[in-house]
């Protein structure tokens, strides 16, 4: 394995930059340059600036890129613009990484520390004074969305949980909760397991840590690589060749492609896990295409605004959640049409980027406010917190609708 930062310095994705024909289509897709002139946009910091870098950083505006990946998706020539940017940023920040960026990548640590003290932690995070101190000292914006700590973890629930008595007709699958799904969005993890069990699967949830996505997006490739490889071992311990299902839209992407494409992690275990990884809606849609998904759904007359997170869109599989939700009689989905909610992992938490992230998210918040009938839907935890905070509308994972439609809630 190369040294983590050797890889972005050697920059394999650079090969794709020669495919750039300067059509500027990527610029039309970038949600950050749309709201601030501080960021010149993907073509300029990506394929254009890259030619001058030669291992050195040439333009610090690059730090304003949120790594949402909208540019890579839009490029008709296959240039991996967002990936180039993530690598260049890691190199740029190598010698002056802010403490804050090291801390907010530590999602598991945060969850572990907060769970036993959930009511206290929640009260503290709701306290303006505490948040102001946190902003001044660590640089996390006082109004940035923060997760609500839970009193129990997903693993704690799983240990006590009894699968249904009906026979397990479909064999085992491994469930990957992600750290937010393990500590904060426990409810979503539980519902996913219950849906899988309802379908007849035996669900295995090995003890698991963080995928390292937050560290990766903060340029901490060294730590992120260790996290992701450790997680691969843990998920593989669930069983050889089993499908791995995730209800954390973004973390699935880290294992499928980001760890490899951005950090150059090239180990067999990552490829093994990456090829077996299915985002839950993707998984259900595959079952449906094969005629194996029961659709004896309970009717639910509701229109839901839906936002596909940027890191879910980056997986290049379209928006399977829309099709799955609309299999439920009465459900009508309105897709946001927005590239990103603004939060982009931990980007929108940072005090110098908070306003930009809010401006990126504003059209989405407006749309959610206008179209919702009580709930909004989104596949990734941090994005749900951002949408909920920005719009005031309860925002849930698509599996909540499926769970309800199977009569499980």
């Amino acid at each position, binding site marked *: 394995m190369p040294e983590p930062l050797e890889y972005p310095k050697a920059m394999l994705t650079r090969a794709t930059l020669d495919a750039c024909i300067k059509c500027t*289509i990527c610029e039309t897709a970038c949600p950050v340059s749309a709201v601030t002139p501080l960021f010149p946009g993907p073509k300029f910091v990506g394929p254009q600036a890259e030619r001058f870098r030669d291992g050195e950083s040439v333009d610090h505006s690059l730090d304003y890129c949120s790594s949402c990946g909208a540019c890579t*998706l839009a490029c008709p020539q*296959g240039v991996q613009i967002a990936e180039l940017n993530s690598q260049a940023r890691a190199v740029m920040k190598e010698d002056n990484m802010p403490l804050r960026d090291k801390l907010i990548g530590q999602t598991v640590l945060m969850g572990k520390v907060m769970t036993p003290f959930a009511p206290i932690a929640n009260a503290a995070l709701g306290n303006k004074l505490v948040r102001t101190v946190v902003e001044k000292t660590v640089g996390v914006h006082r109004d940035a969305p923060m997760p609500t700590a839970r009193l129990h973890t997903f693993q704690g629930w799983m240990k006590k949980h009894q699968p249904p008595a009906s026979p397990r007709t479909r064999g085992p699958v491994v469930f990957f909760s992600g750290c937010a799904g393990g500590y904060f969005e426990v409810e979503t993890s539980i519902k996913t397991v219950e849906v899988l069990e309802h379908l007849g699967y035996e669900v295995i949830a090995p003890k698991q840590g963080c995928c390292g996505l937050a560290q990766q997006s903060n340029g901490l490739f060294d730590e992120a690589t260790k996290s992701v490889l450790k997680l691969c071992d843990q998920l593989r311990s669930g069983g050889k060749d089993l499908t791995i299902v995730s209800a954390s839209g973004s973390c699935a992407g880290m294992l499928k492609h980001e760890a490899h494409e951005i950090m150059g992690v090239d180990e067999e275990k990552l490829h093994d896990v990456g090829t077996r990884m299915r985002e839950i809606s993707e998984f259900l849609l595959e079952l449906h295409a094969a005629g194996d998904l029961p659709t004896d759904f309970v009717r639910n007359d509701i229109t839901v605004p839906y936002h596909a997170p940027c890191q879910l869109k*980056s997986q290049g599989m*379209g928006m399977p959640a*829309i*099709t799955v939700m609309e299999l439920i009689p009465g459900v009508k989905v309105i897709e946001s*049409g927005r590239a990103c909610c603004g939060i982009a992992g931990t980007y929108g938490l940072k005090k110098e980027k908070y306003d930009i992230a809010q401006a990126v998210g504003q059209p989405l918040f407006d749309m959610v406010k206008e179209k919702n009938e009580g709930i909004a839907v989104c596949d990734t935890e941090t994005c749900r917190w951002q949408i909920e905070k920005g719009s005031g509308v309860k925002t849930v994972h698509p599996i909540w609708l499926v769970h309800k439609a199977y009569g499980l809630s």
Partner: protein
Amino acid sequence: MSMDSRAVVVGAGMAGLVSAIRLRQAGMDVTLVTQGIGGIQLGQGTIDVLGYVPERVLGQPLAAVTAYGNAHPHHPYAILSADDVRAGVEFLRALLPDTFVGDLERNYLLPTAIGALRPTALPQVTMAEGECTPGKQMVFVGLRQLKDFWPELVAGNVARTELPGGGRVSTRAAWLDLPARANEVDSTPLYYARAMDDPAYRKRFVDALRRVVEPGETVGLPGVLGLADRGAFADITAQLGQPVFEISTIPPSVPGMRLNDALTRLAKDARVKVVLGSQVLCANIDGGRIRSLTVGTTGRPTEYAGEHFVFAPGGFESGGIELDSYMKVSEPTLGLPLWVPEGDLVVADHNAAQPLFSVGVRFDHDMRVLDTAGDTVHENLHVAGGILAGASRWQEKSGDGIALASAVRAADAILESVQNLEGARNA
């Protein structure tokens, strides 16, 4: 339409989007897979049917389509008829009402961003006042912070051009000093268009415009008059109280972006399953039919199975056709046989049509691909748009007409085949 009728469309340019929407409207389950956003915004946002043969086409572009097809047996218009072009254009017009002007009875002659007069069949409503008629007084107004539009250049070139029926336009140039965003000294049409979506900005813009425009003048502006707010143009015109028109700037053009956004939105709202950002790698073929396409999704490739396939990957400009360093051309995705013109593919004359760009696939009237012997390659594969052989789309200004006619033909051929099959089943 039976539920098992699944279609997979490749490419999100004009051809792919339009055929996907047409199939979906007929009730098919449609997935559209595209590596990136298509080329609509690389054009001008007009619908060009046929502009040069090589002389400029002014009257009756559809008659010109028939005549050009008759004279050029390898051109797409030799197989796609004037009726097909009309059907394609009318389908688009019905999808996007109140977007275009024009009746296919003539071409408009509109100034470009360098002041040439360019023929097009259907300009957008926002461009219509740019029509050049003798004695018309035009003022071209630039923005100091927008380097893609030089009003002196446009005004000078338009003024010295003798109009086809004789006479000239009288022109003048003027400038506004109005950044799109505070302190931005070097902006792009995109940021101006977004600023124009804001009514408060529009008001400031019109106030500034009033100071440089004189009574009786028609106002030519860079193509930035609103992106998301489709009422921006009407608002600006009403506030100014004088005729206004937009001129598309270098790609990506804002008028093209508006078309692309509208068609993409229509496709998504109709529940075409749009898979953006993944490349089709190859096809799985069995018994002369394509069973599925292998798509390079992240993690591992995914199979997209279907009964019908529309292949609209564009030409060289979109990676639909490739040229290697030995001057060998190929269709990289499905390995389809290509028609290659005789002689040199690239000629030294910069202004001449490059034979290379006419390389593409041959096809029949059902848009099925034909091999060199004239036999169908895959029973259920239909092609549309820039991949078709025989045209010099940029030079002829024929790209949109070809894309629309072939997209609708491809969709209709699929629908006809399904109907025939169902008819046979029921009989």
